[in-house]
């Protein structure tokens, strides 16, 4: 679904990512690890076309990114749910409207999705907080809201950048549980994290593979975990 072929990237200076290839299969479960600053966020940005790599090809659902116009990129992004590291909310809109933003952007009738929305809010446990503004939320609430927004268009792939970044262990497990549920529904999951305990916890439930970015390269980590 997401294919990278010999992708390299640099932000102008020296190369950050070097010659990376990946073919993300449907319903797969991947962790992406690596030291802080290794380029995990950059890698994910390339996966959903926020960044164009300096070299190499990116194919989204079979379409070469280089051949897509801006509207084509927008349509591809609707098929990829992203939980951004900073969540990326619009602070002037209540949580409910932030979560339905992809529906609105895709030109769907937001009112018609009311029941799904109620279910979704219940699933992430934010029914009571739906009318709060993003700055009024706790870290865990923000992460779950970001996840709700990422799945509202029923994408086939979910990319989560540090979804347990600043929450306690209990909340981390709760968020992980939501992602595992999504994986069981057939969605491919990629989680960037440096929390090894989270990876171990996941491995007890799903066949997760671990990708590691180190020294500018992408490795498939061994069975040490």
């Amino acid at each position, binding site marked *: 679904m997401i294919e990278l072929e010999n992708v390299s990237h640099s932000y102008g200076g020296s190369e950050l990512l070097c010659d990376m290839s990946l073919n993300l299969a449907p319903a797969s479960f991947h962790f992406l690890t690596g030291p802080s600053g290794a380029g995990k966020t950059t890698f994910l940005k390339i996966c959903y076309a926020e960044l*164009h790599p300096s070299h190499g090809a990116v194919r989204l659902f079979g379409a070469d990114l280089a051949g897509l116009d801006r509207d084509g990129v927008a*349509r591809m*992004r609707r098929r990829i749910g992203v939980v951004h590291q900073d969540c990326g909310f619009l602070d*002037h*809109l209540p949580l409910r409207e932030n979560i339905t933003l992809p529906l609105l952007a895709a030109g769907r009738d937001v009112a018609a999705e009311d029941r799904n929305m109620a279910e979704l809010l219940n699933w992430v446990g934010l029914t009571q907080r739906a009318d709060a503004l993003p700055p009024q939320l706790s870290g865990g609430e923000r992460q779950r809201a970001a996840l709700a*927004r990422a799945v509202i268009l029923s994408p086939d792939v979910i990319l989560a950048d540090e979804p347990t970044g600043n929450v306690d262990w209990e909340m981390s497990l709760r968020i992980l549980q939501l992602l595992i549920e999504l994986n069981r529904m057939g969605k491919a999951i990629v989680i960037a994290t440096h929390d090894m305990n989270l990876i171990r916890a996941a491995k007890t439930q799903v066949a997760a593979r671990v990708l590691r970015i180190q020294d500018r390269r992408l490795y498939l980590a061994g069975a040490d975990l």
Partner: protein
Amino acid sequence: MKALLTPLGRIAALLASDPEASRVVPPTGFAARLTLFTAATMAFLAVFALALALASGRLADRWADALARTATVRISAPPGQMGTQTEAVLRILRTTPGIASARAMSDIEQRRLLEPWFSPDLPVETLPLPRLIEVTETRAGTDAEALRLRLAVEAPGAVFDDHTRWRQPLVRAAGRLRLLGWTAVLLIGASMAAMIALASNAALAANAQVIGVLRLVGARDIFIARAFVRRFTRRTLEGAAIGTLAGMGVVALLPGDGPDGFLTGLGFSGAQWIVPLLLPVLAGAIGFAATRWTAMRMLRRIT
């Protein structure tokens, strides 16, 4: 007309469409108020420029039309020859192509003409006054040079004065004034476009983060642009409507045409009052185009 109505229809549809979608952009208070103010002042000024253009147009037309078709023949001759020369002139005029009518003015009429300059009891009859013949040309006009040649031969004391000499500079001046008025309308429209583009550009730049988020959740450029365009078009329309009505009110209060109206007052006459009412529509279209252009241009720089 249809080419004009399609974009206007699109603008109307945009203004009427889903207000929920425009909520995705936070209120752009300052830039929006700036746009309202700019549109209002520009429309106010445009009303005057328009009034100038239309009034000088009327003036030019009136002068050109009224004066173009009247002329005079002035006969200065010794009293003994006055009668024969007058008759000769009238005969020539009757047989000249392009002359609709010719009539010698009576003493009483000539005296009335002179009264403003002399006292009414001046014995005009005793003065060696030239005889004036009032000539009306047909719409096609006459060949003034040929007429002058004939008059020189048959009535040496007669001078044909077709008013061109002093009419043309006046008509030309009025024409220039009209051109100036329309140029001003155009320049006002252009600077309004520039200012709205600047204001919407500022609003877009201030909302770069919002735009980034919208792009990342899969919004197409046109969806994002519309949220801004809707807002700025509406503000422009509102501002221009206020400015236009204020301008028209002030123009209506200006001292108007006198009954003889030679020096036409600055203003609109009759159906011309409809013309300034088009300004808000035009301004709305300018706001629409300026914002859309800026938005699409800026969006191309965001992934």
